[in-house]
């Protein structure tokens, strides 16, 4: 039985006009990757800032590592990558990284040693004496990432870690995160991109409009969501297919993407009934598969399509 690394107990944060986070409780068990999911503006960053004690909750409390210390007191054991990232542009890369280590409580000598090692590991060794402003955006992101990791924290909190990264760097970062989790440490990251969470997380919490809507191990969440989804891909008579997916006696909910769709069947309807209806209507099918619900569809179902995919919606219209 391992204790929880992070416990948030009914935390609430209000700002002048609105409540950013309302009555949110969550527990992050030791080890593994934990996903904090939610659409933009759901309160993810505010939650993380409260966990880090950058801001104090108006109500409720945060417990880290089962003790009384705040995130700031325990910063030696926590690595943190905020959503809005930055470095001192005029500072040399190595000095910068060493300073971040010292801010975390490392000794100067230790901080410099680790900073050097990390720069080598990320392939930035020859840039150590250059100014940060000489680095490309991607290199700067790597330096920031190293800044969060160099003191070997037990808990790594990453706010939207993969946003703004090109696929190659994104992959490098993901591997590092998986490595950290594999070594028995805990990673908590927030994202609004479900693919990342689906591939990496063991447990998730979904927040929307400041409140928690889903909480649990990913497998459990999928099971609880219940009904299997039907993954469909159409080759012809797509319009007819769409009309059938609107038929509420067959389909409870459909995530219609044009040439492909995910459908959730209405109560008491077997997959065969939908297949028969599609075939009878003359719809050409290249795929008809009973699948686990995707995290994306769970997310949309729980959060509502408006909040979940503002960009996709704009494209569709």
């Amino acid at each position, binding site marked *: 039985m391992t204790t929880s690394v992070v416990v948030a107990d009914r935390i609430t944060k209000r700002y002048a006009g609105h409540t950013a986070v309302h009555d949110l409780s969550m527990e992050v068990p030791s080890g593994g990757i934990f996903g904090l999911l939610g659409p933009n503006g759901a309160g993810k960053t505010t939650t993380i800032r409260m966990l880090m004690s950058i801001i104090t909750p108006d109500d409720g409390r945060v417990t880290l590592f089962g003790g009384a210390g705040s995130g*700031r007191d325990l910063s030696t054991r926590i690595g943190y990558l905020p959503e809005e990232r930055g470095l001192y542009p005029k500072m040399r890369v190595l000095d910068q990284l060493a300073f971040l280590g010292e801010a*975390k409580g490392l000794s100067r000598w230790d901080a410099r040693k680790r900073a050097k090692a990390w720069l080598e590991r990320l392939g930035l060794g020859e840039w150590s004496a250059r100014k940060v402003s000489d680095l490309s955006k991607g290199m700067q992101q790597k330096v920031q990432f190293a800044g969060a990791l160099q003191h070997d924290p037990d808990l790594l909190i990453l706010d939207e870690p993969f946003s703004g990264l090109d696929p190659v760097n994104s992959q490098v970062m993901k591997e590092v995160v998986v490595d950290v989790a594999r070594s028995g440490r805990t990673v908590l990251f927030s994202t609004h991109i479900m693919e990342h969470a689906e591939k990496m997380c063991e447990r998730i919490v979904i927040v929307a409009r400041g409140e928690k809507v889903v909480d649990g191990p990913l497998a459990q969440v999928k099971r609880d969501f219940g009904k299997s989804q039907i993954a469909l891909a159409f080759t012809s008579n797509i319009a007819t297919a769409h009309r059938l997916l609107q038929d509420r006696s067959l389909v409870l909910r459909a995530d219609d993407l044009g040439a492909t769709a995910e459908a959730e069947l209405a109560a008491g309807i077997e997959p065969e009934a939908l297949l028969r209806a599609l075939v009878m209507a003359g719809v050409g099918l290249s795929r008809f598969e009973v699948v686990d619900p995707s995290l994306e569809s769970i997310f949309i179902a729980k959060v509502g399509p408006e909040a979940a995919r503002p960009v996709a919606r704009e494209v569709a219209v």
Partner: protein
Amino acid sequence: MNKIFAVIRREFIERVRTKSFLIGTFLFPVMFGVFGYLPSALMQRETGARGLVLLDGTTGGTGQRLAAAFDSVTIGDGPGALARYRVVRVEAGGRLDALRDSVVRQIGLRDGPVDAADGILILTGEAVDSGKVTYLGSNVTSFRDMSRLERVLEPRLREERLRRQGAPANVVDAAAIQLDMQATKVTEGKTTGVSSEASFFLAYIINFLMYMTLLLYGIQVMSAVIEEKSTRIVEVLISSMTPFQLLMGKVIGVGAVGLVQIGIWGVTGFYVTSLFKGGASASAGMAVDGTARSMTLPAVNPDLVIVVLVFFLLGFFLYSSLYAAIGAMCNTQQEAQQANTPITMLIGLGMLSMFALINEPSGTMARVLSFIPFFTPIVVPVRYAIAPLPLSEVLLAVAVMLLGIAGTVWLGARIYRVGVLSYGKKPTFKELWRWARTS
């Protein structure tokens, strides 16, 4: 504590390493020398001989004696000294107006002859009696030229008047003796050998120095806060140390840079002035009179250097926490440049108050200004430069400053704490008050 130290070291090293620090350290004294010395040096620059036409309408040798008096005036002292005036005496002989007009026509011509007259002095019997003399010239805007003319003319005319009254020669000679007052500063019952100009000059330097450094270093703190805010690095830092630790580290780090820089200037000043102490003198007077009295450099005593350093530090803490709060309120340097005006004006007022102090450095006004924390850091060192204050008064001023600092740091830290994480619209005064009150 280690974290504060890391912030202090970063601020210090990153700043001292910049070219602007190096340039500033060496350029400031040079600049100060240029601005402090050059104007007076330029005004005292010798301009060469002046052509003077003496239109003589007098009788009884008055004109000749005056011409001889002008002839004997030299530029500087010593055997090789050149004559200051090229004097041409013209007998008026009843054609005074016509002669005057013909000479005036040649004055100030752009393409005139090389040794043309610069001015014409009209001397009549009545002029000697009444003391009302007319001078027409191209150089009347020069205070110095005019005062030099007066210094020659005045005693000579007095002499002529006495002569006309039949005064004996010894009375005439006694009346011709000129005033030459040497003002020397007395401090705590001891004469210092420092002239009044030198002591004014030192107070002027200290005033300017305090004003510049408080302003420059205060604004550096403000810029540093905005830099951290706009590059968003502040959030990582705030996650591992308290905003107060970060603020204090920054303020102490920047303050240390200031201390080093002023220390370098102070030691240099002390060394340079003690080099010149033994008799050598530099002419850097503010005086505009004709004697061009050379001035001994003011002594920079170690106790003055200490007072300057202590009050710089106190003033810097007072103002920089306010500047940090301004930085935290704003999103861009441009925004902050406007928002800091009230604070910059407070420092400016402190500097201007020097001109109220200089006449009465120990008066009521000076005392009151010494105990208003916003003015103390400039007023006390300036007063100290004019005349050292009793230790009790200095300590009281320090105590007042510490109280003031406690106030501004409290306010600054509270605004800073909320401000560094707030982006967007600049807060209103009402919002600022709410920031300050939230625990």
